[in-house]
């Protein structure tokens, strides 16, 4: 009976307590004084926060105060026992934030929260100035003025639209975008203003001697994608060239297909024009009210070929990752082999004989402790292979070094995981060294001269905040890495020794000409360029055989629908393309062209001659003509030679193309598809009906 009374009593007390507590917390509220803050970066302010009961008396409830890491600092974090806090708030970044308060209670259903807005504008503008403005101008011309706006933090402010002003609009006047139209001779003061900061320059307008424009081009048959250089000369009446007269280029046109397809193209300020569609285009050169024009006929590039399937090594039970194809050595020197990795599987790499590309056969399997073998590489001499490891059961990951001299019986020589526990996503073998991307933070350079005893020589790591690296490719003693937000890095690891054999290669490559000071032990940065998309994923060097221009092709990878795809378990739908960075002046790389397939995403690539081979995920394999000068959108210019959509009903994911990486090899193109294995294709003419799949 006592026990029952005890239980009963407890029940009553519990019910009563809960009721009282619920009544208390339902009525608590925070008051912030002031009720909002507007601060500049680095400023601080005092805020009094009180937690009141319903009857406006002090609640006698303690509470916590919080800001935001690295943005809003608060002191103290906690109120007094009565429920009052005098808080010092300090702000470190621009943006919109909240100062928050929450009471301390284990009754989470009745936890009371309050907040107060804090607005921190960007720092005030410190400088607004013209960039390299002219001091004289010809009457009757139009000049675009470039401007730089900097704030007090030294940051260039792209979000601030400057105002332009002319002291004498009848002499020269600006539009809203910084284009100055010069009407007549005289002197004028030009001002650029951003917020309350301004700067001015004086401009003298002189008589314009231009009386005609001479426009010429090299006569030829031009196709879409061909870059045509127009030479424009502004001439006086006597025919003297006015060197500094500004010439504006423009074009109009009519596409062959009529109104439905635009006569689209691109023309640069220096007169380089490229057409995307066949048709007739008229290019204009204008200066000082005088214009010249030329009409040209652009024909279709017509380089398309058919990608014919020659052989397919179907993999049905696991995802396939990267590949490498090579020629055997020793007793196998008359045969060809390939290796493919596996992804989110059992740590296997498959070795294939591909001598007959129509008959791709797995001849050996190497299994390592990993769930993903993301990358596979073989040394140039065909002796040593490397597999990368991620998801090892021991969490040690690293790389595995193989003897592939007999691809029918591949042997594991050693494992190297010292400091590589975070996983190696990509690797490259060059000059008895493995370049291994370490935990996505840097690449380690590992000496494998004695492949059974590899050792780390050095590392290359960026020093930017939050840096991350995806891949590295080494060619002719230069390492090209792709570093997401930080873009591509071109690193000297020794270049090429000057010899009769290498002379031509070096002299034709501006990067190689300057390289040679670095080494495996001492990699030296030569050049870098951030990716405007922030998603740099691949980097591949390309020396054009047709023009001698040197590019680094920078790939970007993006999964804008990633969350939904994962949640709905549908095939991935990435985006991204390749940016052609002209490295002729390697200290100032300039993006000149882009290749991107609509509604598909770029992955790995290879260049051979003046042809780009690329795996475009759901867009399949793409083969692109990158000969000649490059400018603009290569896809729209009809430079794509061929494509192949790989997929199989019995693939790991059925009927879903997901090309991973290509390698052109001996008149065939081998590539791996994540969902269906290894492919060998050949490019044939469209009317080649020599039996296909």
């Amino acid at each position, binding site marked *: 009976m006592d026990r*029952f009374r005890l*239980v*009963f009593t407890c*029940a*009553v007390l519990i*019910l009563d307590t809960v009721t009282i507590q619920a009544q208390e917390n339902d009525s608590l509220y925070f008051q912030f004084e002031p009720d909002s803050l507007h601060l500049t970066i680095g400023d601080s302010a005092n805020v009094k926060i009180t937690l009141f009961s319903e009857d406006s008396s002090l609640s006698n409830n*303690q509470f*916590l105060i*919080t*800001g*935001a*890491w690295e943005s809003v600092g608060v002191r103290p*974090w*906690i109120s007094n026992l009565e429920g009052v806090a005098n808080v010092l708030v300090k702000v470190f970044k621009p943006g919109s934030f*909240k100062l*928050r308060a*929450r009471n*301390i*209670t*284990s009754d*989470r*259903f009745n*936890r009371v*929260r309050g907040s107060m807005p804090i607005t921190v504008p960007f720092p005030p503008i410190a400088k607004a100035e013209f960039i390299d403005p002219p001091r004289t101008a010809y009457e009757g011309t139009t000049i675009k003025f470039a401007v730089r706006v900097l704030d007090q933090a030294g940051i260039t402010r792209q979000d601030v639209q400057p105002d332009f002003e002319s002291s004498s609009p009848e002499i020269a006047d600006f539009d809203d975008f910084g284009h100055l139209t010069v009407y007549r001779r005289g002197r004028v003061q030009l001002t650029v203003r951003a917020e309350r900061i301004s700067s001015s320059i004086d401009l003298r307008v002189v008589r314009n001697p231009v009386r005609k424009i001479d426009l010429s081009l090299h006569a030829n048959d031009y196709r879409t994608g061909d870059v045509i250089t127009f030479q424009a000369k502004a001439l006086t009446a006597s025919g003297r060239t006015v060197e500094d007269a500004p010439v504006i280029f423009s074009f109009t046109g009519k596409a062959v297909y009529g109104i439905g397809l635009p006569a689209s193209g691109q023309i640069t300020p220096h007169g380089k024009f490229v057409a995307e569609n066949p048709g007739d285009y008229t290019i204009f050169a204008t200066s000082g009210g005088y214009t010249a024009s030329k009409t040209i006929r652009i024909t279709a590039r017509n380089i398309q070929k058919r990608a014919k399937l020659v052989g397919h090594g179907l993999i049905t039970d*696991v995802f396939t990752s990267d590949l490498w194809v090579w020629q055997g050595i020793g007793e196998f020197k008359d045969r060809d082999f390939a290796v493919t990795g596996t*992804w*989110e*599987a*059992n*740590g296997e790499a498959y070795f294939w004989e591909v001598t007959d590309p129509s008959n791709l056969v797995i001849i050996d399997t190497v*299994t390592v*402790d*990993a*769930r*993903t073998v993301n990358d596979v590489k073989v040394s140039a001499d065909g002796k040593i292979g490397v597999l990368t490891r*991620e*998801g090892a*059961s021991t*969490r040690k990951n690293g790389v595995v070094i193989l003897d592939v001299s007999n691809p029918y019986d591949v042997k594991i020589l050693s494992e190297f995981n010292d400091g590589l*526990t*975070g*996983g190696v996503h990509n690797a490259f073998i060059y000059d008895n060294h493995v370049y291994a991307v370490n*935990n*996505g*933070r840097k690449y380690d350079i590992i000496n494998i001269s004695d492949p059974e005893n590899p050792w780390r020589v050095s590392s290359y790591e960026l020093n930017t905040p*939050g*840096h*991350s690296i995806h891949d590295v490719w080494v060619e002719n003693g230069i390492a090209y890495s792709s570093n*997401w*937000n930080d873009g591509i890095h071109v690193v000297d690891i020794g270049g090429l020794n000057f010899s009769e054999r290498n002379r031509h290669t070096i002299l034709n490559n501006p990067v190689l000409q300057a390289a040679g000071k670095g080494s495996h032990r001492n990699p030296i940065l030569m050049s870098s360029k951030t990716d405007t998309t922030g998603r740099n994923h691949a980097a591949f060097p390309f020396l054009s055989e047709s023009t001698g221009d040197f590019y680094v092709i920078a790939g970007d990878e993006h*999964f804008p629908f*990633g*969350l939904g*795809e*994962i*949640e709905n*378990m549908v095939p*991935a739908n*990435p985006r991204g393309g390749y940016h052609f960075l002209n490295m002729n002046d390697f200290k100032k790389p300039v993006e000149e062209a882009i290749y991107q397939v609509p509604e598909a995403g770029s992955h790995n690539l290879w260049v051979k001659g003046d042809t780009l081979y690329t795996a475009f995920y759901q867009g399949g394999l793409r083969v692109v003509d990158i000969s000649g000068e490059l400018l603009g959108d290569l896809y729209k210019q009809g430079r794509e030679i061929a494509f192949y959509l790989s997929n199989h009903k019995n693939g790991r994911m059925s009927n879903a193309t997901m090309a991973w990486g290509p390698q052109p090899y001996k008149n065939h193109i081998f590539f791996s598809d*994540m969902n269906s294995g290894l492919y060998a294709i050949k490019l044939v003419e469209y009317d080649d009906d020599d039996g296909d799949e």
Partner: protein
Amino acid sequence: MLLSWLNMTMMMVMNKKDFIQKLIFTVLFLLLIINPLKGRNYYIYVTAESQDEVHVVKFDGKKAVVIKDIPVGVWPLEIEGPHGLTISPDGNYWYLSLAHGFPFGHVYKYETGTDKMVDRVELGLFPATMQISAATGLLYVVNFNLHGEHEPSTVSIVDPEEMIEIKRVETGVMPHGSRLTNDGLKQYSVAMMSGMLYEIDVLQFDISRTLFTGRNKQTNMQHSMGSMDHNKPMKKHTKHKMPKEKPTWVYPHPADTHVYVVNNGIDNVVEIDLRKWAITRQFKTDKGPYNCEVSQDGKYLVVTYKSAAKTGIWDLNTGQELVRLKNTRRVTHGVVISPDSRYAFVSVEGIRGEPGSVDVFDLENLTLVDHAEVGKQAGGIAFWKMVD
């Protein structure tokens, strides 16, 4: 007998208030005598770190089955590494740490039931274990930095309603295990490569005490505001002497009197008295102890033995290991005990392409009851709910 008692009770009702009081009394009486285990289902969330999935496992007292597979992350073609899991105290949300990023990891917030992603916040390198404080309602996440340089890392404090990071508290090298006392006022973590236990006072947002987790060098440091400025980063430790203890987990006793620290490197679990701030007992375990948990009734300590591929069940009163049971595969990882103290659910990673598993141990009968196969490298595990 029960019915006659009820009749008597009803007949004795003199007024409405008496009747209500006796009704409450009757309900409580019934609750006291009814077997609480009849028809109870247990629900657990578990991660598959090498498969970018989280699974919901249901156990009905006899059989464990996977009832849901939840793909996680936002990069379909990169393994983002789901590692740590916790459920909000109200059971409405679960929180998941994704260890890998470019380069920083994230904590994601999902709704329980629908398992829809609600929001995420970027934290540090390899965010791992985490828990929400009952007192503050804030989420405490260790940034494990498992594969980085051996330098001090941090505990991130996150507002889980807004999913914003409020503060980072610097602790030691490779912090792991983030657990709070039941009153929610102290958060504990260990630093694997510092050999230290860290206590954060949640009301001060700072470290209040540290303790070396081994026996020989008892470094007992009391921290107070102003004695060490934790806002300034410590010097980078490019080389430091790695402790042999390598603590990997800490778990508080439900009475908030002790914590239990797993020393993976020396195969023991130490019991630390929170009042004395000293090691009071040591339990010699099998090879490679990794995680542990104490049952809500304070009776059992369950320890996972990663290297031995076993799970040990200890009687905390006697300090004796009752049984050491083999797991269904290798690389034993995490453990969570049902709130009724009846079952321990242990995640086991597996090797390479082998599925991971959740092994279910009966703490009364000290047996392996069943297991459910999940994705590769099963790791983080959290108890969601019991449903009768």
